[in-house]
């Protein structure tokens, strides 16, 4: 016969101690199921390290999407037993310090962390997979070569982005000299960029076309902009660099970054509206 704890047996009376124990367990389960913080991190809630990890999780991990969507660690799920990978990862700063001290493994960890983002940025800037791969390789090879010069007064990722942007723009300049493609034409002209298309878009356009069709649409729209505009758009709106970081990476003033970003958004909106607007 299965053992049934006395306090679960309706026919018996629970002692005050048992009732207290049940109440405490229920409260613990309730708090844990409601919590959006893994128990592993509870001890760090007040600490800077927790904040840093939360930010990392928020921006880099699908975990955050689940948490923001209302999920949480469930006391009966396997998550209870698993420490989130992000919590175990070294900080960017620690990896850079180790890499600067000569650890190839630490540098490779940094590469693993940022290679996809740098590839995407390179592809968006150049609009060409072969050029994007060249930019990706050159970026990390140059970063490794010049790592001793990196002073760690800015984020490593921002430094990588700056190298990638320089490499990407060099590719574009070369292509321009080969084919006379415009690069900066119209970037800073004083003509007003005003919306012309006021029809709303179809709802959820990303569900109306295949991933490949959407990539082609976005790529073509971006390529219709001068490189000076689309670079600012990708750094600010996609890579989420600050205005100041973008200005520093591109040798522009903060005002020029804001003006270019406005123009880029408006022009992309017009380009995409040609396909995405309601009939």
């Amino acid at each position: 016969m299965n053992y049934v704890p006395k306090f679960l047996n309706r026919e018996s009376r629970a002692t005050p101690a048992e009732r207290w124990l049940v109440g405490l367990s229920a409260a613990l389960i309730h708090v844990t199921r409601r919590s959006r913080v893994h128990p592993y991190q509870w001890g760090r809630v007040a600490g800077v390290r927790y904040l840093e990890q939360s930010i990392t999780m928020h921006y880099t991990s699908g975990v955050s999407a689940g948490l923001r969507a209302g999920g949480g660690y469930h006391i009966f799920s396997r998550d209870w037993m698993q420490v989130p990978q992000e919590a175990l990862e070294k900080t960017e700063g620690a990896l850079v310090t180790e890499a600067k001290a000569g650890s190839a493994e630490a540098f490779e960890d940094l590469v693993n962390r940022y290679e996809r983002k740098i590839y995407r940025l390179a592809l968006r800037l150049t609009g060409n997979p072969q050029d994007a791969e060249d930019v990706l390789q050159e970026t990390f090879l140059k970063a490794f070569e010049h790592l001793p010069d990196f002073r760690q007064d800015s984020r490593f990722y921002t430094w990588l982005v700056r190298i990638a942007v320089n490499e990407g723009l060099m590719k574009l300049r070369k292509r321009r000299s080969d084919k006379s493609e415009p690069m900066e034409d119209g970037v800073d002209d004083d003509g007003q960029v005003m919306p012309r298309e006021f029809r709303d878009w179809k709802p959820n356009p990303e569900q109306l076309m295949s991933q490949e069709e959407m990539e082609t649409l976005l790529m073509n729209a971006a390529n219709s902009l001068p490189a000076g505009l689309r670079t600012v758009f990708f750094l600010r709106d996609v890579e989420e660099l600050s205005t100041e970081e973008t200005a520093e990476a591109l040798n522009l003033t903060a005002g020029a970054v804001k003006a270019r970003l406005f123009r880029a958004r408006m022009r992309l909106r017009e380009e995409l509206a040609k396909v995405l607007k309601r009939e």
Partner: protein
Amino acid sequence: MNALTCKEAFQEISKYYDGDLSEDLKRVLQEHLCKCGHCKVVFDTTRKVIELYCDGKLFPMPSVVRDRLHQALRRKFEGKPL
């Protein structure tokens, strides 16, 4: 604070997404958007532009590209010519 014209609203929409608007200006912009369908479309679709380009599923890095990158890096680590 005075009401915005559409031309002013377009500029403020971009500043809104930059996080550069004061609470007062946000309120004035919201009031304008409630009254002006055209500007509301510009506001919504500008956000959609940003969302579409931020979709992390798009433009994945092919595994062969990753393999070639790591091969090049290992040669660099070992001081071999690339």
